[in-house]
């Protein structure tokens, strides 16, 4: 089976090489059959990599520990869902996932454009196959997912306990879909420059893929933040970790691109800017992939051990040099067709928004890569932490939210002062009302957070006004009831109103971020059973200690040998709010040197947080039991010296019993964070809005609209 998998990789490499040659020959010689053959090579690549993926999945599901990746990341006790997803928890498996997803998305893009952009698509095919060939080469020559060991070990090491969380398993496919989708606009962008066709047809072809990349990348980032908050024991959702930043940067430039693309579509402007953005987004996506695999990071996200840094640096250098060459050499054809009509226009707001987004990206880029480069050059560890990032990103985020409220109420091309005043009254009133209400409610004065809340109210006011006025106009024309008018309005103007909903989602998300960052109450202290503490408005009492032993009680499939925790009673003003049970899992280390009992619990402990999530606040708790307490360690020592490995579980049972009957003090971490749920809610609204914006109108409706529009276009001129 391993041989079959590796043969698939070799075949994939051959297909990539052939496809590149055929596409380039076809487009240069005008021999369409070769361009077509090149395009079909992408389909063939998807087919072959699907076979390779299937081989690896079967190996995981069948517990074939002859495969090194299976032995390193799975075990017989790993639940089936995690076993199936463990394929991409290793460097090798994740490379295969990357290549496979890229081949699928590339196939879709080329299928949807098979009747258009022939010359552009041929170049894009060669570039996409170039990426495919690069990743397949990495697997063939550096990191083979089908490498085997004989004889096969009887059991695997099991999945990293930190990854035994549903969102953590979906997070990589979503994120990789985002990264790989970013390469599609990049490929078509380079193809358009090579074919000298940066026009309306090119925009139409790549817009949906750019949007899909943005959507998947954003969802992947949010899922990662959710995992960080719910699973890791630090209680935060964003730490400005280098790998987190690496995924955020292409998302920011992708956001800028989606906005400025509208200006190019309408006014034929910003061609250089747009092409540069699309190339930058794709390159940043590759750089993000590089960071995780280069070995230069010691991060929870990084694949340790193997370094694939050099090939990635070469690829990134080629991408950057190629992009610069193409943009500079084609600058004549990228001249703007029009100028800005007015500084007070939606185009100007989009331009400003672009500058802010790119500015944000630059700040994050500097903060992420400068320490790495500095350390590489000087040998001294350098770091840039959250305070540095927050100092520069928070003001930019405030401006971004402001612009997202201004743009919907300002017209394309130009806005008159009278209309400007009329359109901004309601949103400004909303912002002021929010400020008055917050101050009256006794919300502590934190200027930045209060500013964000008011700006969010401004956004909600401006978008709400847009929906109301649009529905009112629709009702005046069609006489529909209000609800139907809103539905019809959104259906006929999906891009506009889908975009408005995205803006609302972003505002809600930022409210959650501002509130949870600025008004959080946290406490770290040691408690014994019966003791309590106050965190914000909540009283938390440590009722009793708890202990569970696998496999019998491991309902959460954590895989831990022993889990020690606590039962906590949370009250507010004397009323019971929640009962929480945080715990810490102790895993087998497989290190015989730790003794028969010690090796069962000597692995890296993992915190299992407990929280009560609500619309207005989350109460979050984590525990660090003192397993080093003398009484417990005495049991471990006695077990190590008297029990063989087969009977060591007896000592674990004794440990659990001792922890429950005579628990030592435990270290607790409590956090009460307002409006954390708004972050996930905002994210869901963003996804909903994006789906509305990206959804194509049915073809019948499109034809009807096109015919009606043509007739009206002619009638309108006849009227004038």
């Amino acid at each position: 089976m391993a041989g079959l998998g590796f043969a698939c990789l070799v075949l994939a490499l051959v297909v990539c090489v052939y496809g590149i040659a055929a596409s380039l020959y076809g487009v240069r010689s005008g021999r369409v059959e070769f361009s077509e053959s090149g395009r079909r090579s992408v389909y063939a690549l998807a087919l072959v990599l699907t076979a390779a993926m299937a081989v690896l999945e079967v190996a995981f599901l069948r517990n074939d520990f002859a495969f090194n990746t299976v032995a390193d990341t799975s075990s017989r006790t790993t639940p089936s869902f995690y076993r199936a997803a463990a394929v991409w928890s290793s460097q090798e498996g994740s490379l295969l996932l990357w290549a496979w997803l890229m081949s699928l998305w590339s196939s879709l893009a080329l299928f949807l454009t098979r009747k258009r952009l022939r010359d552009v698509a041929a170049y894009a095919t060669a570039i996409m196959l170039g990426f495919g060939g690069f990743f397949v080469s990495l697997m063939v020559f550096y990191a083979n997912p089908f490498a085997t060991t004989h004889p096969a070990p009887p059991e695997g090491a099991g999945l990293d306990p930190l990854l035994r969380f549903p969102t953590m398993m979906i997070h990589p496919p979503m994120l990789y879909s985002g990264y790989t989708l970013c390469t599609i606009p990049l490929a078509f962008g380079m193809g358009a420059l090579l074919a000298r066709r940066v026009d309306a047809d090119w925009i139409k072809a790549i817009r949906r893929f750019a949007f899909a990349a943005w959507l998947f990348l954003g969802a992947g980032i949010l899922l990662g933040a959710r995992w960080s908050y719910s699973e890791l024991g630090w209680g935060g959702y964003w730490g400005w970790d280098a790998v987190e930043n690496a995924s955020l940067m292409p998302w920011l430039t992708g956001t800028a691109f989606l906005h400025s693309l509208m200006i190019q579509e309408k006014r034929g402007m910003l061609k250089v800017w747009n092409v540069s953005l699309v190339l930058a987004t794709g390159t940043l996506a590759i750089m993000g992939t590089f960071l995780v695999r280069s070995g230069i990071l010691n991060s929870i996200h990084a694949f340790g051990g193997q370094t694939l840094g050099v090939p990635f640096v070469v690829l990134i250098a080629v991408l950057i040099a190629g992009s610069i060459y193409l943009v500079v050499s084609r600058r004549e054809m990228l001249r703007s067709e029009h100028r800005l009509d007015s500084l007070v226009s939606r185009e100007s707001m989009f331009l400003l928004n672009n500058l802010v987004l790119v500015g944000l990206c630059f700040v994050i880029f500097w903060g992420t890569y400068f320490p790495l480069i500095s350390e590489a050059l000087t040998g001294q560890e350098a770091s840039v932490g959250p305070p540095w990032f927050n100092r520069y990103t928070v003001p930019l985020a405030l401006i971004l939210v402001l612009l997202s409220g201004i743009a919907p109420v300002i017209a394309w091309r130009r806005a008159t002062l009278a209309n400007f005043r009329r359109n901004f009254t309601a949103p400004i009133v909303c912002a002021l009302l929010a400020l008055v209400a917050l101050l009256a409610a006794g919300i502590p004065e934190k200027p930045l957070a209060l500013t964000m809340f008011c700006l969010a109210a401004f956004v909600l006011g401006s978008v709400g006004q847009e929906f109301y006025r649009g529905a009112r106009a629709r009702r005046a024309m069609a006489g529909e009831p209000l609800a139907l008018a809103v539905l019809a309005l959104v259906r006929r103007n999906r891009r506009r109103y889908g975009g408005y909903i995205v803006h609302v989602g972003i505002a809600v998300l930022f409210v959650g971020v501002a509130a949870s960052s600025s008004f959080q109450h946290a406490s770290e202290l040691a408690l014994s059973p019966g003791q309590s503490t106050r965190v914000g408005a909540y009283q938390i009492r440590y009722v009793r200690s708890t202990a569970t032993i696998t496999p019998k009680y491991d309902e959460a499939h954590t895989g831990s040998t022993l889990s020690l925790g606590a039962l906590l009673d949370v009250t507010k003003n004397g009323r019971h709010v929640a009962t929480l049970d945080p715990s810490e899992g102790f895993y087998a280390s497989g290190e015989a040197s730790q003794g028969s009992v010690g090796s069962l619990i000597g692995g890296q402990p993992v915190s299992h947080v407990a929280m009560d999530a609500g619309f207005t606040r989350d109460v979050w708790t984590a525990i660090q039991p003192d397993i080093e307490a003398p009484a417990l360690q005495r049991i471990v020592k006695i077990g190590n010296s008297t029990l063989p490995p087969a009977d060591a579980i007896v000592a674990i049972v004794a440990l659990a019993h001792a922890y429950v009957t005579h628990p030592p003090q435990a270290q607790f971490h409590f956090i009460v964070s307002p409006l954390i749920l708004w972050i996930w809610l905002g994210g869901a609204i963003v996804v909903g809005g994006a789906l509305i914006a990206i959804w194509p109108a049915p073809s019948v409706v499109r034809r009807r609209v096109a015919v009606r529009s043509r007739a009206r276009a002619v009638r309108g001129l006849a009227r004038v």
Partner: protein
Amino acid sequence: MLALVGLVVLVVGAPLRRARRGDGSRLGASSPSQPAAGVERSSRREHDALQAARAELEAAREAKYREIRDTELDYRTGKLSRDDYQAIDADLRAEALTILDRLERLSSTDA
């Protein structure tokens, strides 16, 4: 594995086989000479250029229709004054007609 290789060859080679069959039937009908294939490629290139121009104009037309609708919506939701709306709308409709005229000329050329 052999089946997979065979499938890949079938999928990837289909356009080449189609082209060879097409060239073969043409060569069988006329004289077996390369210029016939060259002329075929040249006319195919012209056809592709026409198709590309049509696709570009159709995309531009759709974008222009969308702009007309957006402008009307901007006016009806109070973002544009009547005078501004009429001026912009007239410009956009004129641009749309230019695109439509070019599309019609292209269609008659193609015909």
